[in-house]
C-alpha cells in the first residue's frame, strides 16, 4: 500500500512548545480509542517529555520532533501527522503503531520561541537562536563505549529517548532535524537506493535547491546526491584513534548519536530530512568558479576565525566577571573553544590534502564564504543573549558586561547586515517544509 500524503494547510508561524504539547494531549483525550499520550521522561528542568501513540499495529514507528531546539519544523510535521492519522483509517493502517514525540527538548526549544512567530529573516533567526553545546544535546549524549572511550552520562532528554527506543524497538525512526540556510538534503541509513530520486524530487518540486556545497560533516559518506549515510560517534572515535590521538576523551565530550544508539538496539531504517528555512540557488550550482577550492575553503576559514576570534576575546574579557550561569553562557563557553579547535584542524587538512586543487564550484564557494560563517555568527547571537541576561540580572553593577554587550551588539549588527546584503535568500513557506518532511518519511515507510 502506498501512503498518500495528506494535504498540508498554510502555516504562518511555528508552534510553541505549549501549543504542540496541548495539541497532542487534546488529540489523545478526544480520540482515546485511537491515541494515547504517555510520558517518557523529564527534561533537565523537570518538564514532562511526552509521546503520542496512535494505532495499535505490532510494528513501531518513531518520529522525534525538535531534536535540536532551533529546529521546530518537526513539531508541525508531527502535529499534522497526528491529526491525519486519527482522521484517516487508511493512513493509520493496522500494521504500525505511530509513536510521535512532539518535542524532545522542551527546555531549550522554549529559548527559541522568540523567532517562531516571525518575521523570518537571517537576522531575526540569529537574534532568537539557541542551541546547546554537544555535551548537552538530547541527540548526542547516548551512552556508548568504543576503543577505550566511554560515555555514560546521558542528558535527561536523552534518557527519555532511550526509554522510548528500548521499549518500542522501532522499525523506522524519523529524527526531524532541519537546516537553516542553503539547500535541502537527507541522511538515510541503511541506504535505500530507490528512494534517492523520489526524495530529491520532493525538494525540487517545491523549489528547494539540493545542498551540493561543502558537506556538513567532512567524513560523511554520500550515498547519492544530497543523500548521506547517518553518522555515529563510533566513526568519530575510530577517526581520532586511527589518527593517533592518545586519549579521545580529550577531544570528545559527547555520547553517541541517536542513529548510533538505535542501530545497536534495533537497527531501524533511520531518516533525517534537512530542509532549510532560507534558500539560495547558489547552493545547488555545480558550475566551476575561477578560484581553487582550497582558496575558497581557506577564505571561509578566515571569515570563521575572525568571528570566533572575536568571541574568544569577549569570553576572555568576561572571564571571572560573570555573576550568572545561563544556558546561553554555558553554550558559548563550550562551543567557541571547540569551534576554534575545529577550524584549526580544518585548515591543516585543507592545506595538506590534494583534493582541494580542483576549482571550487559555485555551491562550494557559497558554503565556504556565506553558509558556514553565518552558522558561526549564530554563536555571537548566543553570547549576546548571555550578556543581556547577565546585564538584566546584575543591573548597573557589571560594567564589564555592559561594555561587552555594547560591543557585541555593534559587531553582531554589522555582520548580520553583511549577510543580509550578500545573500539574496528566499524564505520558504512553512507548509512546503512540513510537506517535504512528512512526504519523505511516508515514502521511506512505504519501503519497509
Amino acid at each position, binding site marked *: 500500500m502506498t501512503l498518500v500524503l495528506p494535504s498540508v494547510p498554510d502555516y504562518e508561524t511555528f508552534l510553541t512548545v505549549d501549543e504542540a504539547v496541548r495539541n497532542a494531549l487534546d488529540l489523545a483525550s478526544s480520540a482515546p480509542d485511537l491515541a494515547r499520550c*504517555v510520558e517518557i521522561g523529564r527534561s533537565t528542568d523537570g518538564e514532562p517529555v511526552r509521546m503520542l501513540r496512535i494505532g495499535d499495529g505490532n510494528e513501531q514507528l518513531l518520529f522525534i520532533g525538535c531534536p535540536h531546539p532551533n529546529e521546530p519544523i518537526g513539531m508541525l510535521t508531527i502535529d499534522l501527522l497526528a491529526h491525519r492519522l486519527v482522521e484517516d483509517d487508511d493512513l493509520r493502517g493496522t500494521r504500525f503503531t505511530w509513536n510521535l514525540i512532539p518535542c524532545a527538548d522542551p527546555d531549550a526549544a522554549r529559548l527559541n520561541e522568540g523567532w517562531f512567530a516571525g518575521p523570518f529573516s537571517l537576522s531575526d533567526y540569529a537574534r532568537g537562536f539557541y542551541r546547546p553545546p554537544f555535551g548537552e544535546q538530547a541527540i548526542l549524549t547516548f551512552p556508548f*563505549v568504543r576503543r577505550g572511550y566511554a560515555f555514560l*552520562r546521558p542528558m535527561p532528554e536523552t534518557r527519555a529517548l*532511550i526509554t522510548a527506543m*528500548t*521499549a518500542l524497538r522501532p522499525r523506522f525512526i524519523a529524527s526531524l532535524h532541519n537546516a537553516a540556510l542553503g539547500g535541502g538534503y537527507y541522511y538515510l541509513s541503511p541506504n535505500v537506493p530507490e528512494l534517492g530520486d523520489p526524495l530529491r524530487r520532493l525538494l525540487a518540486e517545491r523549489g528547494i535547491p539540493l545542498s551540493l556545497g561543502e558537506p556538513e560533516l567532512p567524513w560523511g559518506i554520500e550515498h547519492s546526491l544530497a543523500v548521506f549515510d547517518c553518522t555515529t560517534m563510533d566513526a568519530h572515535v575510530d577517526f581520532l584513534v586511527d589518527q593517533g590521538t592518545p586519549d579521545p576523551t580529550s577531544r570528545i565530550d559527547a555520547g553517541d548519536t541517536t542513529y548510533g544508539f538505535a542501530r545497536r538496539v534495533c537497527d531501524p531504517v533511520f531518516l533525517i530530512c534537512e530542509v532549510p528555512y532560507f534558500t539560495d540557488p547558489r547552493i545547488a550550482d555545480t558550475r566551476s568558479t575561477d578560484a581553487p577550492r582550497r582558496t575558497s575553503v581557506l577564505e571561509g576559514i578566515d571569515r570563521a576565525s575572525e568571528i570566533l576570534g572575536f568571541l574568544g576575546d569577549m569570553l576572555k574579557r568576561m572571564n571571572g566577571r560573570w555573576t550568572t550561569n545561563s544556558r546561553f553562557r554555558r553554550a558559548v563557553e563550550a562551543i567557541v573553544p571547540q569551534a576554534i579547535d575545529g577550524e584549526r584542524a580544518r585548515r591543516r587538512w585543507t592545506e595538506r590534502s590534494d583534493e582541494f586543487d580542483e576549482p571550487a564550484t559555485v555551491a562550494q564557494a557559497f558554503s565556504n564564504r556565506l553558509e558556514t560563517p553565518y552558522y558561526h555568527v549564530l554563536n555571537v547571537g548566543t553570547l549576546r543573549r548571555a550578556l543581556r541576561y547577565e546585564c538584566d540580572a546584575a543591573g548597573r553593577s557589571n560594567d564589564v558586561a555592559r561594555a561587552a554587550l555594547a560591543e557585541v551588539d555593534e559587531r553582531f549588527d554589522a555582520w548580520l547586515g553583511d549577510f543580509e546584503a550578500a545573500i539574496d535568500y528566499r524564505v520558504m513557506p512553512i507548509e512546503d517544509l512540513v510537506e517535504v518532511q512528512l512526504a519523505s518519511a511516508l515514502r521511506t515507510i512505504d519501503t519497509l
Partner: protein
Amino acid sequence: MIDRILSKVPAYEYFLSVDELNESSRRLADEHPDLVRLETVGASTDGEPIGMLRIGHGKEQLLFFACPHPNEPIGAMTLEALSHQLVDDAELRGERYTWNLIKCIDPDSTRLNEGWFKGPFTITHYAREFYRPTSFDQAEWTFPIVYKEYGFFRPIPETQTLMTVITGLRPAFVYSLHNAGMGGGYYYLHPHRPEIDDALRALMTDRGIPLSLGEPEMPWGVELSPAIYQSTTLTEHYDFLEKFGQGDPCAKMQGGEGSFGFARGISDPAHLVCELPYFYDARIDDTSTTDTSRKDAILQGIERTSEMTGFTSGIYARVGERLTVTSRFRTASEHLTKLIVDGLEVKRAWAENSPELDIPATAAQLFDNLVVGRFYNLLIVGMLRRALALENEQAPTPEIGEALAEVEERFAGWATELEEEIDYRVIPIKTLVEIQLGAALHIISTLS
C-alpha cells in the same frame, strides 16, 4: 582459581553502609588510577550520585549491580570483595574483560536499611529496620517495554541508570545481586549450562546452605534443574496472566520489564541472580512428613497472614487520613498489604478446591506455611511501625501516639513468638559472599 579467590574473602562482621561503600570505591580508584576508574553513571530519585567502578581494560564488558532491592546488601559486600581482588589478582582480572561494578544501585532505599547492617543479626532487629519499596519503585522492575497490549515507559531514575550502563556497555554478563531473607538458596540464570549446575549447587550445600526445592517464587518460573530457574521476564508474567487470569492482563500488570528482559534485547548477555538467606532453620529442608495435611498447613498460613493484613489495614483505616508525612514506609507497607489481600482470596480458593493438597505436609512445607510466612508478614508490620514512628516524630498527635503504641506492642508480640519458634542460625556474611562470588566466576568461565 575459583577456590583461591573464595579462600581470600575476608570475614566481614557487618554490612557496609552506603557511605562506607562509596568511600571504599573512591579509595580504590585513587590508589590504582591505572587499573580502576570510578564513574558517576546516574543519580537516584533523591538526587544522590550512583557510582560505578570500572576495573581492567578488556574489550568485553561484565556488569555487576548490587542492592537492586535495598534490603539485600550481600551483593554490595560481594562487589566490595571482588573489587579488591580484581586489583590484587592479575589472573582474575585478565585481559579479556572490563569489570563494571555498581555496589549500590539504590542508595536512597538502602540507607533506610542501614539500621540493621551493623547487627545484632536477629529476626527482630532485621524486621524493625527493614525497608523495601513496592514493585513500581524498584530499580529491578521498571525497565521500559512494549509487549502485546501492554506499554510501560516510566523507568525510575535508578532503572534509568541501569539502562545507561546496559545500553552503553552492551555487557556479555549481567549479575543482578539479589538475596532472600529466610529459606533456602537458589539461582536464576540464562543461558542454562548444565555442566556447571552441580558446581553451583555445591557452592551452597558445601557451606551448609540448604537448596530451595519447593514451589518456584513465581508460578510462571521455569525450573531448569533443582534450585536453578530460568531468569524471568515481564513477558512471561503477561503470558501467564493472559492464559490463566481473567480479563485484560494489562489491568493486573504493574511496573515494567526486569534487568534480564531488558538486557536480552540489548546485548543478550549471560544473566545471573543468586538468592541466599540470612537466617537458617534446620526445618527449611526437612522433608519428613507430618500429621498436618498440606491443605491445612496452607489454610492455617493464610489465616495468620489475614490476621496481619487485617491488623495493618485496620490501622491505616483508622489513622491513614491523619498521616501528614508521605513516607516511603507508608507507601510500601500500605501497598504491599493491599497486594497480599488481593492475592489471599485467590490462594484460599485454590487451596480449598485442590484435592492434590490432601496429603501430609512435609516438615519443610509446614514450617514454610506456619513460620516463614509470618517472618515476611512481620517485615510489613515493621514498615508500618516506621511510618507511624516518623509521623509521631514530625507531627505528633494523641491518635498517632496511640496507634504507634498499639503497633509497637503487636510487633513486639509477633517478633517474640518468632524468636522463640525459630531455631535459627545467622549465616556468616563471608559464606554468603563466597557463594555469590563463586557463582559469578563459574558463569563467567562458560562465556564463549
